């Protein structure tokens, strides 16, 4: 039995009157890349934001490395946060700081190393994501792909054991997106980081996923789980096959 890194138990999410996710149960194992997928509006990003503890759920628990992130006290949470890195959809680099300062920020806050040591560490992170030479650039001066790379460098600044990615390849050209997939895979191979990726780019899914779960809007929950290659061929659920084969449901064909 593989070791569990994150477990989501009976998670129910409600915004106002509408239930977005209903009774989700999910385990993420150490060292795997789990991809959360589904059509727009099915609650992928919402699930991710609950897994990193940004939102509080209506019901249920999220346990990361044995710590219940919803009920843990501040100190425990702070310790846990060191172990988690997140790449946000818009990279969320701090606009008033250079790339260098953005990556140095968590290192300064959590390590108490000398400036020289921090500089070396920042460089090594930049070397990992292929952004050396852009230290003094402001985020607004970077292209979309470079911003994502800088975001990843910041996310891995403290060598977390778990990384979350919210739509890493959204809005990127195919080559940049493929490079980013490769980077994600390399980090996973190299450091053995557990990864949770939210995406709906088929290409990425087949490239990086060890395992996928698929969410569905109507069901408000998980409708499929497993290896994407197998799901594409053998799933009994037409919604799952349609998703993997880019197939438009029959009833939408009527007009054409």
């Amino acid at each position, binding site marked *: 039995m593989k070791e569990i890194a994150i477990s989501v138990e009976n998670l129910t999410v409600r915004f106002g009157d509408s239930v977005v996710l209903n009774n989700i149960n999910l385990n993420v194992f150490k060292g795997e890349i789990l991809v959360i997928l589904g059509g727009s509006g099915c609650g992928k990003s919402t699930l991710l934001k609950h897994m990193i503890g940004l939102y509080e759920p209506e019901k249920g628990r999220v346990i990361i490395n044995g710590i219940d992130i919803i009920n843990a006290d501040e100190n425990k949470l702070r310790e846990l946060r060191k172990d988690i890195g997140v790449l946000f959809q818009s990279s969320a680099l701090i606009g008033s700081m250079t790339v260098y300062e953005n990556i140095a920020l968590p290192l300064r806050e959590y390590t108490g190393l000398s400036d020289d040591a921090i500089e070396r560490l920042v460089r090594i992170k930049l070397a990992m994501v292929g952004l050396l030479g852009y230290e003094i650039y402001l*985020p607004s001066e970077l292209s979309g792909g470079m911003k994502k790379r800088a975001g990843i460098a910041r996310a891995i600044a403290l060598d977390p054991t778990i990384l979350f990615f919210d739509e890493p390849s959204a809005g990127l050209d195919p080559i940049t997106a493929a490079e980013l997939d490769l980077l994600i895979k390399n980090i996973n191979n190299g450091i053995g980081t557990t990864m949770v990726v939210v995406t709906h780019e088929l290409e990425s899914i087949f490239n990086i996923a060890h395992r996928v779960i698929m969410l569905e809007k109507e069901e408000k929950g998980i409708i499929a789980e497993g290896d994407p290659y197998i799901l594409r061929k053998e799933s009994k659920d037409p919604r799952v096959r349609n998703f993997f084969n880019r197939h438009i449901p029959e009833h939408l064909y009527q007009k054409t």
Partner: protein
Amino acid sequence: MSSNDFGFDIKGLAEAGLTVSLSGRLSVENFDKMLSFRGDIFSKYKPSSLVIDLKDVTYMDSAGALFLIEMEYESKKEGIPCEITNMTKEQRGLLELIDRDAYEKSFQVTKKAGLNFIEQIGHEFIKFLDDIKNIITFIGMMIIKIISSLFRLSSIRWNDVLTYMKKSGVDGLPIVGLISFLLGLIMAFMSSLQLKQFGANIYVPALVSIAMIKELGPIMTAIIVAGRTGSAFAAEIGTMKVNEEVDALIVMGFDPIKFLAVPRVFAVMFIMPFLTIFSDLFAIFGGFVVGVLGLDLTVHTYIQQTMKAIKIFDIITSLIKSVTFAVLIAGIGCHRGFEVKHSAEEVGTATTSAVVTALFIIILVDSMFAVVLSYI
């Protein structure tokens, strides 16, 4: 040695080559220790060859990888062979993640050289002059557009004008009223303390009304509108620039100044004279409260004295002033908004700058009015 520490064991002779056995955690917490260890190896021992044994390493993160890379890099520089043994698959994977050539090349100064003091003064001064030029250009351009839209009234977005009139005028009335009321109250009270000594309480109504109508009414209103409305315009348009909404307007064939700035300027132009008059009235009412309750003036005397002091000419010039301020405040607010390029930080700067610039120019223009009006 606790398991969280970084440890090492050095075997062999410097001339014959060293074997360094590392143990424990090669991680961020121990990074400073590793760096000083690296310095020691090369300065104290000066080995002829180096073998780094990772057998007892329990954990290695990217700081550890960095350490190993730097050991290899140093050895290469010193011209001695360096070998790393007993590396696990994960450790090798981590090392391979790093683009070493780029890392080694990157040790160059990346900080921009700062300007010296005199250069900075010059730089700032040129920026200041440019800024004045830009504002004058923008306001000139806007006035042309306003006049040209006056000839084609249907081209003005009247719905927007009404919305902004409500936002900047009606919604701003309570604060304008309150501040003016208190101002009139304070003025009457403070002046009466002095005038009482001479038995000249009867001049309080004239003092309040003349001061308000000629100077303070338009100025106070302008300050409040600059703070409420000018800043809002800068923030709104600035955010639209960040979101590429302004670009979208241009592509759809709209002139952003006509679409965004003209309705705002019109709205403030229409509403400012009313706000100014309200401000005057509230201040006079504040003076009235003090006069009647505190100074033994009758209601009739107070009103009569006020009416006697007010001249139509003063009211008209005060309204002209307020319209001028309106154009300047709204124009500067919009201009600062358009100056934003692409970051959230710039929106903040633009908002602050909209208020500060507007206040500065209001005072400047007001003193020009004072000089000109004294000759009429």
